[in-house]
Every structure is written in C-alpha cells, then in structure tokens.
C-alpha cells in the first residue's frame, strides 16, 4: 500500500489575512469618511439647496416636521408658540444662535411663523439646514 505524505493543515491563517486587510481598510474608511451625529428623535428629509454658508457649532436645533410641528429637544410644539420656548431655552444656554432643520415638505408658513417667533425672542438670524443637490 502506498502511503501519501499527509499535508499538515497549516493554511487557514494565511487565507484569513486578505480578509483582515480588507476589513481594516473598510474600518479606516468609515472612520475617516463618516461624521458622527447624535441621533435625533425626528427624521426629516432636508430641502435641497446649492449655497453653503458653512456655519459650524450651531447649538440649538429646531426641527420642523413635514406636518408643521416644531421640535425643540424632546418637546413638540406648534410653530406659533415656539418662539416663547426658544426664548426660555436660549436663556438657559446663553446663546443667540439657532439652527432650523425643516422638512422639505413642511409648510413654508410654519417655517416663517417659527422665524417670526424667533425674531420676537431676540434671534436676528437663523440658519436653515439644507442638503446638497438641486
């Protein structure tokens, strides 16, 4: 009877190395290319725009849902009275900068009503967040 040399099972580590390489590359890609954002309780699809004023570090974000309701933190309110709450909120934070995240299907009058309320609360300029596109 002919005896064959038994091949020792040594190759499993070698085959794993390309996999590890690819996974590391993906990991580094996601680390560098992505930006972390705090999760928000409302999902809005931002309106598309072309201009970018590149404002950074906007502390208070108001979210206008597609049905016109306004979220400030975890409170939901009508656009008419949002200015009052923003005033209280800004008093706590001591900042005059407000960003507005409005859904692209939100009624424009709700956004404008909110901005009027913000004017009354002493906010001269708001930042509307948009998404790149046309």
């Amino acid at each position, binding site marked *: 009877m002919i005896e064959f040399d038994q091949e020792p099972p040594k190759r499993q580590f070698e085959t794993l190395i390309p996999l590890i390489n690819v996974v590391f590359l993906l990991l580094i890609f996601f680390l560098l290319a992505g930006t*972390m954002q705090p999760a928000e309780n409302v999902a809005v699809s931002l309106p598309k725009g072309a201009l970018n004023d590149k404002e950074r570090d906007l502390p208070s974000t108001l979210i206008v849902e597609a049905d016109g309701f306004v979220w400030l933190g975890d409170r939901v309110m009508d656009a008419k009275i949002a200015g009052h709450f923003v005033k209280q909120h800004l008093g706590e934070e001591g900042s005059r900068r407000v960003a507005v995240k409005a859904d692209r*299907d939100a*009624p424009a009058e709700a956004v404008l009503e909110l*901005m009027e309320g913000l004017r009354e609360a002493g906010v001269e300029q708001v930042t509307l967040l*948009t998404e790149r596109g046309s």
Partner: protein
Amino acid sequence: MFEEPVRRRGMASLTPLIDVVFLLLIFFMLTTSFLQTQSLAVVTPAPSVDELPTDARVVEIWLLGNGTIAIDGTPVERAALAEGLKQAIGERKDLTVTILAEKGSKTQALITAIEAARQSGAKSVGTARVERIAP
C-alpha cells in the same frame, strides 16, 4: 518522562482580533452618516407684512399654494427662477427681494427662492407669509 511542551507562540490566534475589528466596523457603519448638510443663514422676518417695503424697488417672489412660483405675478419654472430674477433685477442693484409664501407652499420652494434671491445680487431679502396672494 514528560513530553516537551510544544512552543506555538509564533502564530497566536487571530480570531479574537477579527471579531473585534468586525464589531468596530459594524459600529462605524451604523453610526456614521454621509449626508453632507449645508447651512443657509437667513434674517428672521418682520412680524407683519405691512412692515415690508412696497415701493418700486421691490421684486416679489410669490410662492403659490399650488406649488408654482411667480416673479411679480409672472409664473416661472423652479429651475429658471434664478435666471428670471436676474432679468427682473437687471442692473439695479439696490433692489429688495421680497418672498411671499402663500398658505400651502412648501419649505423646498422657500429655500429655492431664498437661494435665488441671494444669488441674484439684490441688496436685501425679506420673507413674509400671507394667507392668500391677491392676483
């Protein structure tokens, strides 16, 4: 006697490393977002329409409730808004652009109008909401 212990330290097991790297990968895949947001600074509007100037040096953009946009009453396509606004303004750079949003108009139209007004080179941009734009 006892056998010599086999020295196998040259190739420590890679499996825990791979597990951790996969976990990190999945974590970053789920938590990162590639949505690039832009910001558009807008001056808050005056509380009443009556405070807006209405003399001849004003170009009005109407955001109508049915989704159409008009410049001083002439309907324009959304894509042609910036161009139409440039024509309406012409060489007079001291103009004010007023954006009137009728009940039922959407935020997307408002943003489009604000950006067009900004790019047109008008001196100032005002916004106001109205119940209904008189034809």
